[in-house]
């Protein structure tokens, strides 16, 4: 059984079909990339998984559950975390606090024990902190730990988003253009991070990315989309050489 399954999913915005009868599966443990021209519906696929939109038709299954039965906030409870293409951080909080919010789905304490800050709440806080520190170390964010998000440069924010998603301890990580706005050097870092996330942490990664270097570097399989529908699916090399993909997405020079 695949970890994530899209079965004939369709989504319309008014007259516009953003996702058109789309089916694909993401296997546990792989890095799965989605590519496609702008407006192909890639982010919309993510938003469907996050339950921000209800599909017009079709099924989405995650780990054997019918994902469409979950509330938007319940998706995280299944162990699905994501980043956003346009960066959606908690602006008026520090990096540390942002990551700690990521721990929210592991909250065991209740309101009363928190208001009284009982030893159990304290223990949980220490635990959260340790987990978060591991991620900070992993992504090299030490220097920004106590910085407010509102003062961070674009590239760092992208990394903080990944860190926050990781803090939830996910099984499936959705990355929406993780390398956009990163320099070549940082993109390389990102590549290794994604590699480690998959290999060491055992997290399945579903990623949208336009940087073909990164895509072919880390992903096992690639789905190419256009106009909401599947264009090609296969290994990075297969997809990159697929004529329709070259035509619609890569351009001849690549």
């Amino acid at each position: 059984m695949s970890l994530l399954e899209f079965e004939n999913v369709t989504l319309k915005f008014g007259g516009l079909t953003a996702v058109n009868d789309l089916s694909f599966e993401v296997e546990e443990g792989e890095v799965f990339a989605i590519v496609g021209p702008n407006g192909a519906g890639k982010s919309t696929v993510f938003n469907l998984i996050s339950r921000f939109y209800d599909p017009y038709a079709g099924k989405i299954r995650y780990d054997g559950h019918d994902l469409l039965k979950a509330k938007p906030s319940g998706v995280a409870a299944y162990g699905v975390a994501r980043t956003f293409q346009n960066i959606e951080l908690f602006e008026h909080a520090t990096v540390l606090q942002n990551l700690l919010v990521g721990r929210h789905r592991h909250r065991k304490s209740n309101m009363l024990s928190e208001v009284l800050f009982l030893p159990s709440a304290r223990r949980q806080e220490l635990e959260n902190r340790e987990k978060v520190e591991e991620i900070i170390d992993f992504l090299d964010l030490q220097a920004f730990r106590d910085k407010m998000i509102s003062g961070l440069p674009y590239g760092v924010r992208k990394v903080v988003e990944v860190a926050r998603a990781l803090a939830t301890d996910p099984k499936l990580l959705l990355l929406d253009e993780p390398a956009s706005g990163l320099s070549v050097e940082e993109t390389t870092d990102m590549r290794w991070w994604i590699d480690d996330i998959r290999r060491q942490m055992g997290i399945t990664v579903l990623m949208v990315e336009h940087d073909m270097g990164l895509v072919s570097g880390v992903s096992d399989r690639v789905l190419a989309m256009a106009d909401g529908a599947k264009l090609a699916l296969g290994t990075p090399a297969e997809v990159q050489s697929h004529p329709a993909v070259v035509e619609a997405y890569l351009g001849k020079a690549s």
Partner: protein
Amino acid sequence: MSEPILTIRNIESFYGPIMAIRGVSLDVHQGQIVSILGANGAGKTTLMKTVSGVMDPEKGKITFEGDEIQGSEPHKVVQKGIVHVPEGREVFPLLTVDENLSLGAYTLKDKGQVDHDRDLVFSYFPILKERRNQEAGTLSGGQQQMLAIGRGLMASPKIMLLDEPSLGLSPLLVQEIFGILKRLNDEQSMTMMLVEQNANAALELAHHGYVMEVGRIVMDGAADVLMRSEDIQNFYLGVQEEGARENRRWKRKKTWR
């Protein structure tokens, strides 16, 4: 060479107590494309914002066509012919694509030219024409980026400041964008200041390049000279990286800072 059209001298800019730009000077000549490279947090965006008047520098001088413009209101800067295509799109989310483009031409009086420019933008980005009545906020990330660039073009600027114009665009469109920029530069001899993470394409296009790190300019030179520098190749162009880093995860530290 001719007198520079835009000169920046010893600019210092702060975010409250944080110094983001530490005495940057650079020149842009008429008809040139100047590219600025730098890791994230280097202060590229801050520099651009300081030029377009969206931020006030605390020290230093910026002159455009002989007039000092540092610290003036942003709309005055635009009226002089400097247009900034910002990082992060910044479209008007509740206005339609068409209305966004109209506002791009806010400073222009000539309706004929506005219509002409609009058609030009639509020819560059046909998807925008298709979506001309869609609210900009519901466009996809890349579509918004196209809109932002198109909107910048609508102002018929003398100089364009482009902050990561290729952000979030598909490889095909990235090629196209750089093609368009090159054409504008060749045909209309439009001056540009370009910040790009896609350093390869940027240096290919540019005449001159500057490298910023931690708020300073640490290197500059003709684009082709920079392209040949080993450090630049390593850190900004990713040349050899594929092979060189395949087996090693450590990074070579930059020699400047």
